[in-house]
């Protein structure tokens, strides 16, 4: 089971191909506010994260996730439950 730091590293890696504006990514980076992703980009990115960790991040969960750190928390929790 990956720890949170490993998850965070992986999430940051997965952001890279979608980070067209080269926004510096930290835990506090917001997907909508800072990365300025539209809903199509969000969907592709979420699918990439899901495939990497073999998890499902439901739309209900996605609605609660605004920042990179929150996504790392959610993925860590999902992996722990598996």
């Amino acid at each position, binding site marked *: 089971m990956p720890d949170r730091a490993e998850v965070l590293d992986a999430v940051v890696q997965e952001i890279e191909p979608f980070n067209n504006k080269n926004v510096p990514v930290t835990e506090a980076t917001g997907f*909508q506010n800072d990365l300025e992703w*539209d*809903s*199509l980009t969000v*969907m592709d990115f979420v*699918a990439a994260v*899901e*495939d990497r960790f*073999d*998890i*499902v991040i*439901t*739309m*209900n969960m996605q609605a609660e996730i605004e920042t990179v750190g929150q996504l790392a928390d959610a993925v860590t929790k999902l992996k722990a439950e598996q």
Partner: protein
Amino acid sequence: MTETGLQPEALPVEPPVNEPGRDLFSKFDPLIAEREALLATGVADPFAIVMEQVRSPTEAVIRGRETILLGTYNYMGMTFDADVLAAGQAALRDFGSGTNGSRMLNGTFRDHVAAEDALRAFYDMPGAIVFSTGYQANLGVISTIAGRGEYVILDADSHASIYDGCKMGDAEVVRFRHNSVADLDRRLGRLPPAPGKLVVLEGVYSMLGDVAPLAEMVAVAKKHNAMVLVDEAHSMGFYGPNGRGVYEEQGLEGQVDFVIGTFSKSVGTVGGFCVSSHPKFEALRLACRPYIFTASLPPSVVATAAASINKLAVARTKRERLWSNARRLHTGLTDLGLKLGTERAESAIVAVILDDQIQAVTMWQALLESGVYVNMARPPATPAGTFLLRCSLCAEHRDEQIDVVIQRFAAAARVAGALPG
């Protein structure tokens, strides 16, 4: 179902958020500004069309001009059918203009039952429930049958009414890539086995007019013990031996748990429905809020629906005409060199893909001024951020009308720079 221009049909948008202390309506400023910028370019407002007179299922007067209708979803041309009109007129005379009540209370009249019986016969299924609109049918069925702790799995390009049904319900919502059987399989495989699951599909997706690989998708859903709901709004009357939809054409009789449909397309009036063979299906009437807490359809509407459905069951000539028309338009526009949403005519929707908003609006306006009405669609309603001019065919279109449309498309595309001048 119905496109509303600036509002997305397919994808959920993040709700606009207001700064504290501002007027409630200031959250709509970006929408207002975008519309004003569009109108400032001098184009007609694509979302303010008025049908001043309607001459037939394929002709209307718009801005004083005789116009060929090529964007109405009136697939089977039933809106002026003599038997349908007579049924509606008789019901208006005998039962009055409205029901004043819920289906649950005083709002079930003879012809609501007749419409549900017509659906049972049309689909050869024992369960049928009529809703006041197609939107409410999806809203009601999806939000009610999938509850807390259960899952709805939907195609990313699903109609707004499907997304809204998910939002209204308490289930966990998972979406998969449009028409991807492998992605559906992968996502279902990652879900816990015990909770109930509903996979929501559409027979024809209305933006590009593409058909779903339902046979493969239903097989995958069954493998994971999920129930299947198929929205056949854009296929009723002209797919499969009995016109039941894409699921019938792909040989899935008895394998789809719920079929959602509408009266506002092939049937030619307004209303929505769900049919099913589930033994407890009609218990939904006791639990489904969008069914209970709204007035039922007027008697004339359900009477026209029942008459129309009974005729659609045997409308073989119209079915052939519609497919012939779809192929004629698809071939004609392809030969002009336009880029279309599908390689061949998969449905009665032919979507022309354009580069940007200005080109789409310019071409849309040139078509309108030459007497052709089509739908314009733009992101986020459209897949992959495309700008579309969407045509929908009618069984009542004549070959000459389609040939005229193709000529006018050629001229409009040159005006808009979509084809070389």
